[in-house]
């Protein structure tokens, strides 16, 4: 109990801060911060597995998040029948051509020794394949995008409950990570960072511009929910009764019947959105707890020990007969799959998929700040990092405003400096993140909750 005191203290303070937001701002804001904290925590756990357990730098988090979001769209949206009949066959044909191309390249790679001729053959296969696929897919893509472009203009999905997409998102992200890992894992640490960053940009470019698959920058809105809708809740009797019971003391103060009814309605509207957010919190908490149990078990298993050995001394681990390349690939895929789950969770919560919103600042670098601040190699630290950093990211605007008002109190409201500073309050979050990261890296390089390995 004693040795975990700092963990408990840190989490209590964090929860206290969120509750303070609930009391002083509103419970709605507090819960939406809490939900995004949970999602950030999942992302951070994914990155932490790669960086903290194995020392692999992955700056491609944005790409896996977006793939998870794509999975949410492809699973939950109903299929667009007209689009399928218009261009589905072309798309399926192109897909089989791509598979054929990959198989052909694999065959050549296996069959022939490494030589110049082999490189040329592979290049020819790929270039010819791309040209043929373009010819096959183009009419199909055009036909699909012409089907009611204002509403659909894409193939749609499978029409399944959106919860399944959390698993499919993990599979998508893991699959991408497998390909990237095969290609890039042999690189030095900083090259790997740059390569993954650039590859994730390519993934975003594809998601943004292949309208037949994702609707691109036209966005997909109104995704199905795993939680009830506010409008429905506001008309169900048990929910109204529940809200009434909760607010009885306040309602009893009002004697006038119509006024009482109006107040109750207000409470029901507020309560419904809080209730929906609570549903999401419950779902997300389940995911976080399952992942936490699994990652903790893995950390203290023989496999976790091996990973740490590989991280700390690759050559020695290799000499002991551990397959470093294979283990690196495995952990790269696992970590990315967890990030994919988070991506699907994020789209599930928002109910919309906006490819244009995936930016490296928010989805790669911010997550890395979380990992470093929380404590790499420590799962509790990673989750805490997700909470602390997301909390500051959201609350830095009010804090910044307060600070600006405090420091420029002597100036008149119309003074240009004050007006300018107040206008730029949103950017104080970057400043806080940067300074926070620099301070942590300097004075507590292992994070708030450092890695602790006890021998059991």
């Amino acid at each position, binding site marked *: 109990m004693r040795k975990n005191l700092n963990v408990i203290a840190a989490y209590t303070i964090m929860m206290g801060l969120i509750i303070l937001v609930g009391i002083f701002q509103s419970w709605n804001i507090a819960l939406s911060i809490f939900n995004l904290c949970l999602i950030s925590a999942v992302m951070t756990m994914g990155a932490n597995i790669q960086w903290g357990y194995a020392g692999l*730098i992955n700056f491609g988090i944005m790409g896996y998040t977006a793939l998870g979001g794509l999975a949410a769209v492809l699973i939950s949206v109903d299929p667009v029948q007209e689009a399928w009949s218009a261009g589905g066959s072309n798309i399926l044909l192109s897909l089989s051509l791509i598979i054929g191309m990959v198989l052909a390249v694999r065959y050549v790679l296996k069959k022939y020794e490494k030589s110049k001729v082999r490189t040329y053959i592979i290049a020819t296969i790929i270039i010819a394949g791309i040209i043929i696929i373009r010819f096959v897919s183009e009419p199909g893509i055009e036909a699909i995008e012409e089907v009611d472009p204002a509403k659909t203009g894409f193939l749609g999905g499978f029409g399944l409950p959106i919860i399944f997409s959390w698993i499919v998102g993990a599979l998508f992200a893991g699959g991408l990570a497998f390909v990237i890992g095969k*290609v*890039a894992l042999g*690189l030095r*640490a*900083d*090259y790997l*960072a*740059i*390569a993954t*960053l*650039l*590859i994730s*940009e*390519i993934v975003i*470019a*594809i998601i*943004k*511009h292949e309208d037949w698959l994702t609707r691109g920058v036209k966005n997909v809105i109104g995704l199905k929910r795993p939680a009830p809708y506010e409008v429905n809740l506001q008309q169900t009797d048990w929910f109204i009764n529940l809200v009434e019971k909760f607010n009885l003391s306040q309602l009893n103060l009002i004697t006038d019947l119509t006024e009482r009814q109006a107040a109750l309605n207000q409470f029901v509207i507020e309560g419904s959105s809080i209730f929906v957010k609570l549903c999401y919190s419950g779902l997300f908490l389940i995911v976080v707890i399952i992942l936490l149990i699994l990652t903790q078990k893995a950390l203290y298993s023989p496999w976790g020990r091996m990973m740490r050995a590989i991280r700390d001394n690759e050559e020695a681990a290799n000499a002991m007969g551990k397959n470093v390349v294979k283990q690196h690939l495995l952990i790269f895929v696992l970590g990315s799959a967890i990030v994919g789950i988070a991506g699907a969770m994020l789209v599930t919560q928002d109910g919309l998929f906006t490819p244009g919103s995936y930016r490296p*600042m928010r989805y790669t*670098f911010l997550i*890395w*700040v979380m990992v*470093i601040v929380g404590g790499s190699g420590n799962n509790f630290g990673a989750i805490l990092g997700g909470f602390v950093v997301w909390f500051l990211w959201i609350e830095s605007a009010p804090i910044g405003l307060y600070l600006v008002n405090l420091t420029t109190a002597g100036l008149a409201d119309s003074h240009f400096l004050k007006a300018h*500073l107040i*206008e*730029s309050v949103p*950017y*104080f*979050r*970057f*400043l806080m*993140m*940067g*300074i926070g*990261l*620099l301070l942590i*890296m*300097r004075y507590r*390089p292992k994070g708030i909750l450092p890695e602790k390995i006890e021998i059991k």
Partner: protein
Amino acid sequence: MDYINAIVLLLNYIFVPALAYGSQLALGAIFVTLIYGILRFANFATGDMMSFGTMVTILFTWYFQSLGISLGILPTALIAIPFAIIFMVGYMLLIDKFVFKYYRVSKSPPVQLAMVSIGVMFVTQAVVRIIIGPSDRRFFDGEKFLIKAGEFKEMTGLNEGLAIKSTQVITIVVTLILVSALFWFLNKTKTGKSMRAYSDNEDLALLSGIDPKKIVMITWIIAGVLATIGGALYGLDKSFKPFTYFNNMLPIFAAAIVGGIGNPFGAFLGGYVIAFSEILLTYAYKKFFMYLLPESLEPNTLVQLLSTDYKFAVSFSILVIVLLYRPSGIFKGKIL
């Protein structure tokens, strides 16, 4: 006649813009490569340092404009750049003293320095946005075109016009002067040689009495010059927007790695490799073929290899291919 038209078309839409864009990338890539070669880390704050330099240039430009100083047909920013460089070098040295020095002295692994540079990136980005705001700004004044498309048509009697913007010429000329001065410095002067020695083998360089503090300081000064000029030229040619500068970091990294990171000449060429391949692969060649082929063979599609949406993706794909087949870059890197 048709052949000349086709060539002018390519010059106008591919060659001239790619040369200007390539020069801007090349300056950034040399900046990345110098930091990597001497200080041994990948600087993720590159784009934002360039935007900081540009911001200072813009502020000085506005100041000079308010004083009524101008260069006539040349943009006022050219007078502002030297002042901005002084400011920028100060900023670089300040960052080094308060942030990077600690990790360099304690011999932290390069990865940690790269992480620290992300912190610097956040702070610099915040400072830029707080001071000048996130919106698009143009600070170009003076004569816009050296040759206008219409004038060119009249002069030569061709169907195709060739427009050369003065900013493109300024970019190319300034880049060439700056890069030749830099190579002269690195190859001929004693300080430059000691920098190369330091980058090649730190321990040996220290043994032979090279002062590491001086080397590091000069590196940051050169970096400040490159960042300011590279950023200001890009801003003059296109426009200044902090977010675009952050994004430009990616093709700049690609250029530095393609050229062989740590090798300034490679980085210089890498900038053009990236710029030309981006533009060549995403240009629609329909009109070009219309001039060259007889009417019966004229293409009815755009003859575009990739849509312009994938402009960035092209440079990144090149990078991935280079990393796979020649991880040390086209022109073997690692030494200045």
